[in-house]
C-alpha cells in the first residue's frame, strides 16, 4: 500500500491522526506529515479508515 496526500486539499483537520497515528501526524507547525508512505500490513485497516474519514477526501491509497 502506498499513501498519497493531496496537500492542496488537506486542511489539517487531524482526523487521520486520530484514526491512524502510526501513519499520520499533524505537527506543531499545523502541517500533516505522512510518517510512513508504505505502511505495514497491520496498519492497513486503520489507514483505509483514515482515508475514508478524511473530511476533505485528501488521502488516496494505491495498491503496490
Amino acid at each position: 500500500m502506498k499513501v498519497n496526500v493531496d496537500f492542496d486539499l488537506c486542511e489539517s483537520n487531524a482526523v487521520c491522526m486520530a484514526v491512524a497515528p502510526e501513519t499520520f501526524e499533524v505537527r506543531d507547525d499545523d502541517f500533516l506529515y505522512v510518517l510512513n508512505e508504505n505502511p505495514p500490513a497491520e496498519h492497513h485497516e486503520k489507514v483505509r479508515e483514515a482515508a475514508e474519514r478524511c473530511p476533505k477526501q485528501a488521502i488516496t491509497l494505491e495498491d503496490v
Partner: protein
Amino acid sequence: MVIGDEPHRPYDRPPLSKEFLTGPYDEDRLLLRPTADPANLDFTLKLGRKAIELDVEQGRVMLDDGEVITYEGLVIATGAQPRRLPASAGAEGASGLHVLRSLDDARSLREDLHPGKRVLVVGAGFIGAEVAASARQMGCEVTLIDLASAPLDRVLDSASGMAIADLHRSNGVDVRLEVALDHVEVDEGGRVKRSVLSSGDVVAIDTVVVGIGVVPNTGWLSGSGLTVDDGVVADETCLAAPRVVVAGDVAKWPNRSFGGRMMRVEQWDNAIDQGGYAGRRIVAAIKGDALATPVEPYAPIPWFWSDQYDRKIQLAGMPTERAELMQGAVADRQFVKAFLDEDDVVQGVLCWNRPRQAVLGRQLVAAGESVAAARERLG
C-alpha cells in the same frame, strides 16, 4: 435497506455552509462514495421516501406511500430539522427567508448570496456563524444577531465566544448580541425587505438566514411506545427497544465517559462513529438475546470543528464553567484552552488553529487526565 426522505444520493453536509456556498465545491464533490454505482450496492436505497409510523411490537415501519416494511432490526437515524421562526415574525412563506440543513436549502441560499446583498443571520451558533463568514466572503453586507451575550454560547466559554464576535467584526460583520428578531416586513412581491429587532432597531435586508438550532425528527414515532425526550432515548448501548437502535442527531443516550450524562450530539464525527456502532449493535441484538448480549457501551469523546474565515475552531470533549489557557493568546486567535471539572480533571479542550492539540486533547479527556498533564502535553 436504507430509507431516506431526501431525493438525493447520500452526501456530506459540512461543506453546505462553507465551500458549497462560496463556490469551490459543486454538488458532485459532496457525494459520499461518488464512484459507487447505486445499482451495484449490496443494500437497497429507498430515496425520497419517508417513514411515518413505527410498530415496535410487530417490527414494522410504514412509509408515506403506504408501503409497509418488516424488519428484524431497525436503526433510527432520522436526524433533525432546523427550528423555524415563530409565526409572529410574519415571514412565513416569504422569499429570501432561509434555513440551512439540506442540499436543497443550500441550493436556494446560494442563489441569494451576491455581492452587495444585505443578509441578516439570526442566531450565532455554528450554522449562523459559518453562514455569516461565507456570506462575507461572497461580498454580502452581513448582520449577525444572537439572543445570548456571546456567540456559540452553548459550547464556548464567554471569552472564547467573544473572540468569535471579534473575528466576525474584524471581517466586516455587524455583530449584535442580546437582541432577537421581532418581525420581518415583506414587499409587494413577497420578498423580505426590512427586519425589526427586539431593540427596536430596523435593518434593511434582502435575505434572512435563520440558524436557531434544530429539533430532532421524532414526530413519526408518536404512538410507537419509544421514549422521546428531545431525541429518541436509548440505553448506553444505543438500544431504544429490543430490536431498535438509534444513531446520529436524533439519538439521546447516557455517555459513560461523562458520568452517564444524557447526550444528543449533532456533530459530523459522531454521526460516523455512532452509525458504525449502531450497525454492530443491531447485529448483536438480532443474533443474540437483545438485552443479554454483552456489548461495550457507546462512550465517545465528542469532537467537532468549525471553519470561519481562516480560523479552525475545534472542541474535543465538553465545555465546563472553568476554562484555563494552555498556550497562545485569545487575542491572537491562536490558542488552546482546557475545560476542567471541580476536581481539575480535563473535560474538554478548545483549540483555535491548533489541530494537533485537538487530537491530543481528546486523548487527555478520554484518559481522565488532570490539568497538570494537560499543561505538560498541550502547553
